[in-house]
């Protein structure tokens, strides 16, 4: 008997993010995990950048000019989008964790994702 093939393995971590063969809750899980990793990365980047505030006016204002750069702006937009996707999905997880709407988790996901996309759209309009 082949004992190794088809077994759980840490090397299969990419499967968390592959939506093939996954269903609604699986997409939510993938989305939640991707945004979580992205936001954690952003959090520490943000903290690092903010040290410029302690260094004095010149450095920080120079940095703020960078935010006019379209790529940085796109990055900011991505952070905002990730926050809303993660946040709305998080509300769904909190609700279901305490038994609220747990048998309606698919509908909850669709509802919250529509809400998230609407808020992101509003933000996009305001940002650009």
């Amino acid at each position, binding site marked *: 008997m082949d004992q190794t093939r088809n077994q*759980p393995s840490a090397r299969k971590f990419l499967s968390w993010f592959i939506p093939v063969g996954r269903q609604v809750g699986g997409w939510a899980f993938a989305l939640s995990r991707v945004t979580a990793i992205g936001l954690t990365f952003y959090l520490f980047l943000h903290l690092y950048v903010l040290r410029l505030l302690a260094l004095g006016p010149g450095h920080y204002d120079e940095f703020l000019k960078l935010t006019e750069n379209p790529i940085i702006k796109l990055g900011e937009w991505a952070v905002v989008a990730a926050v809303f996707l993660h946040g709305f999905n998080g509300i769904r997880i909190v609700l279901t*964790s305490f038994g609220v709407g747990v048998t309606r*988790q698919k509908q909850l996901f669709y509802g919250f994702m529509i809400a998230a996309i609407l808020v992101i759209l509003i933000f996009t309009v305001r940002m650009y």
Partner: protein
Amino acid sequence: MVETWKITLRVYRQKENQESHFDDFQMDVNPDEYVLDAVERAWAFHDRSICFRHACHHSTCGACGMRVNGVEKLTCITPIREVTHNGATLKVEPLRNFPVVSDLAVDMGPFYRKMEAVGARAVLPVTEAEIENPPSKWDPDDSQYIRLSDCLECGLCMSACPIMATTPAYLGPAPLAAAQDQGLRRKPELLSIVDCEDGVWRCHSAFECTAVCPSFVDPGRRIMNLRTQVVDMKLRKLFGKA
């Protein structure tokens, strides 16, 4: 007049120590037959070396779980009509996260050991079964009736769970659901098994288990409920109210 479809059954093949591949079998099927019937037909008329597990053919034994076009299905109750169309391909693969014995047959051992570890109930009073449409009120006499538990131990949830894919140590949806079914208040010794890193806290609410469960056990809901049971017990302990 019985409808006939031409389909290609694409079967995952893997023999001891050999590389895996897929074999295609062209066959005429009645679309109202089940996927398991197509696999059995491939074995009976095309290739006697195909290994697969099956027993009851009506969703009581849980032996015939496979991945059909990538999604976990109990093949004995999955009509061909629901998963493919005339002239198309039907791909069957073994469950994920189980050791493959051969082809579509997997070793249920590790999974059954977990079910045994939580003492999953095989039979229970009818009145304790959670069913979709329970009577508004059970007759008091009904508690004498015993029924087989809803969980078929088919392993579909263990295969679909994205967390199971990376951590064999995770107890998994069905064993956690079985613990919830017994109740921590009734069986406090289960607390030490479910309240640990590999227990109830590993679930990240993907609800894939619930989506694939062929028997309406709804492991996702049960895991959520089990968490509140654990938190409730721990808070009571903390505040000295056992």
